[in-house]
């Protein structure tokens, strides 16, 4: 499973890294995307490109357009083109293994970016997903409620992430639950992480306990929207803290309005920046195991141990809204729509 030693450390370190890689000039850093059609990868690319070119290296990329076969050919092409480091967002993490082996044989260094590829020579850079659950629970304890009746709105039962998140949440809440301070009054999976399904589940939960709910742990922002709508209908929105993740614009607006406590935000620019900095360092000859914040990870399907850096996400609460606005993730207008003047510092 996850080795968690390095999570917080990595976050702190990545910010100060860019200066170190200045002498890596003239190397080729390449990326193989699984499908560039999806909006989010454009954000990642911009972040990666900026760091790579900022260090005087050259940036190349290829788009596999959702085909495992094309991605394999892409990587082979990138190897021949003389890439020193290739970042791969794998479309099929098993089918891509031969390409990783070919790269290893050719002496090209590989980074599996966001999607785990279980090749012992590749570095794995991703967000810390169990950490998201821990962060939600931690924020709830620090800024929401420490005790009372808690409802848990989990994601889709078929998605392992829903369970990972819940593990992280429980890890943090367990002491208080064992002490009888926190009571689990409702706990349901939500089909397809659907907000409307979460709303129905929350309505039933409130009915079954006659509105005696003190806090709601929702595993993402979309479902938090449904939860807040259900709370609103009972006049409880705002007085019952609700968690979420993804940094949805609507959720950040709810954070500003006070109906949602926190949205844990995985800023893909942070991930891209970190990965690009590691790529610069590796291109420069640094071994993956010596990178700052690196640890061992063997939580994949095959249990292969790889070097990994797990980047901690950012729990955005009301007092941290200025960070998302300053990062350009959302506009101030979007975050602050309908917010009473003076109630949120970031909106002034």
């Amino acid at each position, binding site marked *: 499973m996850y080795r968690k030693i390095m999570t917080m450390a990595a976050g702190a370190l990545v910010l100060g890294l860019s200066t170190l890689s200045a002498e890596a000039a003239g190397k080729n850093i390449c990326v193989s995307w699984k499908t560039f059609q999806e*909006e*989010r990868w454009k954000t990642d690319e911009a972040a990666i490109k900026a760091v790579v070119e900022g260090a005087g290296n050259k940036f190349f990329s290829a788009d596999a357009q959702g085909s495992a076969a094309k991605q394999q050919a892409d990587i082979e092409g990138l190897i021949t083109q003389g890439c020193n480091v290739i970042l791969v967002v794998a479309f099929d993490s098993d089918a891509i293994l031969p390409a990783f082996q070919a790269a290893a044989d050719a002496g090209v260094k590989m980074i599996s970016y966001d999607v785990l590829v279980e090749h012992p020579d590749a570095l794995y850079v991703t967000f810390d997903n169990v950490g998201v659950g821990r962060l939600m629970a931690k924020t709830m304890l620090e800024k929401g409620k420490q005790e009372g009746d808690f409802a848990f709105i989990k994601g889709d*039962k078929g998605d392992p992430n829903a369970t990972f998140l819940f593990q992280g949440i429980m890890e943090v809440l367990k002491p208080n639950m064992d002490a009888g301070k926190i009571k689990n009054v*409702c*706990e*349901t*999976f*939500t*089909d*397809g*992480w*659907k*907000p*409307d399904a979460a*709303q*129905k*589940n929350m*309505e*039933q*939960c409130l*009915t*079954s*306990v*006659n*509105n005696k709910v003190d806090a709601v742990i929702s595993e993402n*922002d*979309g479902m938090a*929207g*449904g939860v*807040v*709508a259900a709370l*609103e*209908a*009972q*006049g*409880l929105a705002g*007085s019952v803290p609700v968690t979420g993740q993804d940094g*949805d*614009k*609507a*959720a950040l*607006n*709810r954070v500003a309005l006070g109906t949602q406590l926190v949205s844990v935000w995985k800023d893909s620019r942070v991930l891209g920046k970190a990965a690009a900095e590691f790529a610069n360092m590796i291109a420069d000859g640094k071994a993956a195991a010596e990178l700052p914040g690196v640890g061992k990870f063997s939580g994949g399907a095959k249990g292969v141990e790889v070097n990994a850096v797990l980047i901690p996400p950012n729990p955005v609460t009301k007092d941290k809204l200025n960070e998302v606005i300053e990062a350009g993730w959302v506009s101030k207008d979007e975050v602050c*729509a*309908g917010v009473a003047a003076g109630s949120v510092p970031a909106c002034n």
Partner: protein
Amino acid sequence: MSMAATDNTQTPAMAQEGAVTRFLRATEIDSRMLGMIGALLVIWIGFDAASAFVRGGEGLLGGSFLTPRNLWILLVQTSSIAVMTTGMVLIIVMRHIDLSVGSILGFTAVCIGTMQVYWLGPLVGVGHPAIWIITLALGLALGAAIGAFHGSLIAYFGIPSFIVTLGGLIVWRGAAWSVIRGETVAPMDKNFKLIGGGISGITPGSIGAIASWILGLVICAAIVAMIYNGRKQRKRFNFALRPMWAEYVLAVAGCIVVLGVTWVVNAYYWPKGVVDRWAQQTGVTVPPEGMNIAFGYSIPVLIALGIGIAMTFLANRTRFGRYIYAIGGNPEAAELAGINTRKITVLVFALMGMLAAVSASISSARLDSATNALGQFDELYVIAAAVIGGTSLAGGLGTIYGAMLGALVMQSLQSGMTLLNFESATKDMVVGCVLVFAVWIDQVYRRRVK
């Protein structure tokens, strides 16, 4: 009516019939519907008793299911699927299927949301009263246009409806994503929000106690008028009449159901938090023991009821409806009778698309946001509701009220199991089994009636 299969003019074995059969024959009540209502009551009572064991509450049997609050929410939760299933019945009756309704719902919802939040809001000012009217009208038009497009491909290009709408299922889900690129659009317009039945500020999306009682009484009067009018018609043509007692039984039973439901929705009061907010904003002082302000019928439930009545009228009392059933019974015969079956096909799919847009409005208003996942899997529930309600996939057979009752049965099961904190895997398994079981019972029933 042509779809009702009861005739009391030639019954050879009248004397040997049991009391129940005689009752059903005299009142001409569809015994399938009675069966479904019976099943529904069993489910409700079962959940209330079970929840009494688990946690206790103020329900009829000490549980938390048969409480005004839960029943009120149950009706609201059912309304979106119930609206769509009225159209699905007609589609299935015509021997077609529409797998795309959930995706049309998602797509129209994000379009409505986008118009409200990103276009009209900034253009005419957030909260402008024209916003909800314009976006609702455009949303309905969009849904109808998509449906008409599917219908044209089916009717004029001869592509099977299964394929066209399977494509639609994928296409419109993708289109929904493209419109908002995976984001959530929120919040919806404050007037539009009332369509979902929630509370917008201190304005509830329901009509309150007095209006609800008036509505209940009007519906009662309509039932009595219909029974009276039916009798007059039969007299005019010298047809066999129902016995007088049967007429009274129908009128009284109908009114009891309507007024009973009205009583239930009026027994669900504003939650304390809302009352406090209302008092604060209006300057009313709430007495220490609290105030009971009734919700009454909620707007989405009224929409579903209105659409149910309108669709029943359409199916049973208009040429359009008659043609739909005739096409389902024998498409070739309908064509030979001079019916423009292609036009009817396009219209039915357009109607379905528009109903999906109505549901899109209800769902997004209720959630107070639009997401591209809205309505996912709804096609399955809509089809299942129609089938549980007695619609035959072979075509030609099905009723609107049956399908709506089917939707209520399914939502009751889901809500009840959630209330009991069932695992969601168990819920899925139960709903799936009930679907198959209901159809089997239906088959057995139909064979025995013959």
